[in-house]
């Protein structure tokens, strides 16, 4: 059962209850989760957890923020209120969260920029058991890591934050320009002066976040990624309900062999979303002189 789905709507818990390929639902919680489209209050989270378990699925709480000294106490209180004993996994990136809850719940280390090589993945697995391999490496590097490590989590679809600042850069911009700012809007984008790609912005209590311009995906590569040994995460941030379910359905139908690869790819690209390989197809260099340009 390799799929881990980040919930986009509560209704999806019932919608997918009979899908055996979906093992775990990730739920976002207010004040704890970056990225999650769905961020629940404590009471909503308790209800969601109960429903997920009733449907014989597992629950993973997304707690992937950076926490400062005064913030981590709030996080601990929230998780204790939800009742940490009642969840299956806690997804974290801050080791303060790990230190606090390590003996109470199974943890999944999620830090997209860090787990970039086989040896670090191996070391972290010794401590945390569950890690999500970086999505900022090439597919070949990913394959190499998987050959050397088992039972990995792999980011399979989503839109990654490529910049995470504690500064309220968007708020400060509007203040400086003396312009009106709608903090509830999720429709702000940046375009670099000499480029065309649109990079979405989200700003909240945790800071300013800039996202990659498209949704990365892995599909044709799945057969080479040891489907039976690893787990595959589908993130649904920046998607509406319909879009998220279409994507989940594409992966389900492909993995159940109800659709061919070509058909699945066709459906994916017909969604009218900016879909690309992301960093999985991005061979980075160190020096400007090493960057090849298309003349």
């Amino acid at each position, binding site marked *: 059962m390799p799929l881990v789905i980040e919930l986009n709507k509560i209704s999806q818990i019932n919608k997918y209850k009979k899908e055996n390929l979906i093992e775990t639902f990730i739920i976002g919680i207010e004040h704890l989760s970056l990225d999650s489209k769905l961020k629940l209050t404590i009471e909503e989270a308790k209800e969601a957890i109960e429903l997920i378990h009733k449907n014989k699925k597992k629950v993973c709480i997304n707690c992937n923020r950076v926490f400062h000294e005064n913030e981590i106490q709030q996080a601990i209180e929230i998780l204790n209120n939800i009742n940490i004993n009642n969840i299956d996994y806690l997804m974290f990136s801050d080791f303060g969260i790990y230190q606090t809850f390590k003996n109470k719940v199974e943890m999944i280390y999620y830090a997209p920029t860090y787990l970039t090589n086989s040896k670090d993945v191996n070391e972290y697995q010794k401590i945390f058991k569950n890690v999500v391999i970086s999505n900022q490496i090439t597919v070949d590097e990913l394959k190499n890591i998987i050959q050397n490590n088992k039972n990995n989590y792999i980011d399979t679809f989503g839109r990654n934050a490529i910049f995470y600042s504690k500064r309220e850069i968007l708020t400060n911009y509007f203040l400086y320009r003396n312009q009106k700012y709608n903090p509830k809007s999720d429709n702000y984008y*940046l375009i670099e002066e000499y480029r065309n790609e649109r990079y979405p912005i989200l700003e909240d209590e945790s800071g300013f976040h800039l996202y990659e311009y498209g949704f990365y995906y892995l599909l044709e590569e799945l057969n080479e990624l040891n489907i039976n040994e690893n787990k595959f995460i589908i993130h649904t941030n920046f998607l509406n309900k319909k879009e998220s379910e279409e994507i989940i359905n594409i992966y389900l139908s492909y993995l159940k062999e109800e659709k061919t690869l070509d058909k699945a790819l066709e459906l994916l690209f017909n969604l009218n979303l900016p879909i690309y390989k992301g960093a999985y197809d991005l061979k980075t*260099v160190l020096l400007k002189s090493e960057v090849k340009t298309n003349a």
Partner: protein
Amino acid sequence: MLKKVELLAPAGNLEKAKIALIYGADAVYVGGKQFSLRARASNFTIENLKELVLFAKKLNKKVYVTTNIIPHDEDLTGLEEYLLNLEQIGVNAIITSSLHIISTAKRITKNLEVHLSTQMSSSNSQTLSFYQDLGVSRVVLAREVSLKEMKEISQKSNVELEVFIHGGMCVSYSGKCVLSNHLSLRDANRGGCAHSCRWNYHLYQGNRKLTKKHEFFNMGSKDLMALRFIPDLIDMNIASLKIEGRMKSSYYLATIVRCYRKAIDLYYEKGNLTEEEIEKLIIEINKAENRQTSFGFYKGKTTIEQQLFDTRNETPTKEYVGHIIDYNPETKIAVVEQRNYFEIGDTLEFFGPNLENTYLKLEKMRDKETGEELSVARHPLQLILIEVPFKVSKDDMIRLVLNKS
């Protein structure tokens, strides 16, 4: 008795490292040819490191080597040999962000300390206890940690704390930014950062462009200058005060290190720093600082005052004109290596680790090679003979006093 706080300076090459130590740093951190961020710095061969360690040890000072990239598989070749070499030549510590490098160093070396890089953005005391369990002896805190938070963390942690006090600041949490990767293909976490956060952007809401013509959305931040907070940092028993800038010049390092050295020593001597002393040191710092500065996150949440808008403010300083190669106290002739244009009639300011700022109006100078009298010193690295009536020493530096209209 509590250990005295360490002043830690960066160095991109051997000359800069020696200057930083001479000018008052207690330790320097440098990058080797492998495993280090700042691919564009000259970086150190093992032979360079050997020479630096010998130099530092004579002064009873320390050398740390950064192994702080977030490595891909291809980057880890030769790690064990490299770490053993570092230990063998006497490097005091590595600064790293990779768990694999931490565990390898702890496994195969006995005397090499492991410091955790700011790349891991450590910002709470529970995180520090995680690393302490792994054998890390010092943690470089995230630059986003406020002074108040530093105090709370220091009270709850047994591991040494190192904090940034001066220099460039990442706008994103360190280690969590791949903006440069996506915009320029240059890997921010392996030494190739293109500083894309300082570029110009247009802001849109949906399809509506909000930035006006000639106005951009900027993310860049002012550099950090935390001189005022030195007393607080010493009082809360921070182990090390870190200056950023492995790409910076010797002149910059000499000026900045000297000022912070003075601040630290004055505080230990008197128990306080007056506003006058602080202002004087800030004026001195600004002679080498070519970017706008602020206090970063020291006072908590940042505002527009800590950000840069509408401007690329890096103006090259032209004040640094030379440094002393040699001085004969009997003839009072100094051999000066030219670093920028200066001429007869200029007022020169001499300074050094043991020399307070002293002024000289230049009336005569000769080319050392030809003996010819000069009216201008125009050639880089030209050796000039100048009569200096007060004692100067090798590695003292010279500024041009600019007339401000």
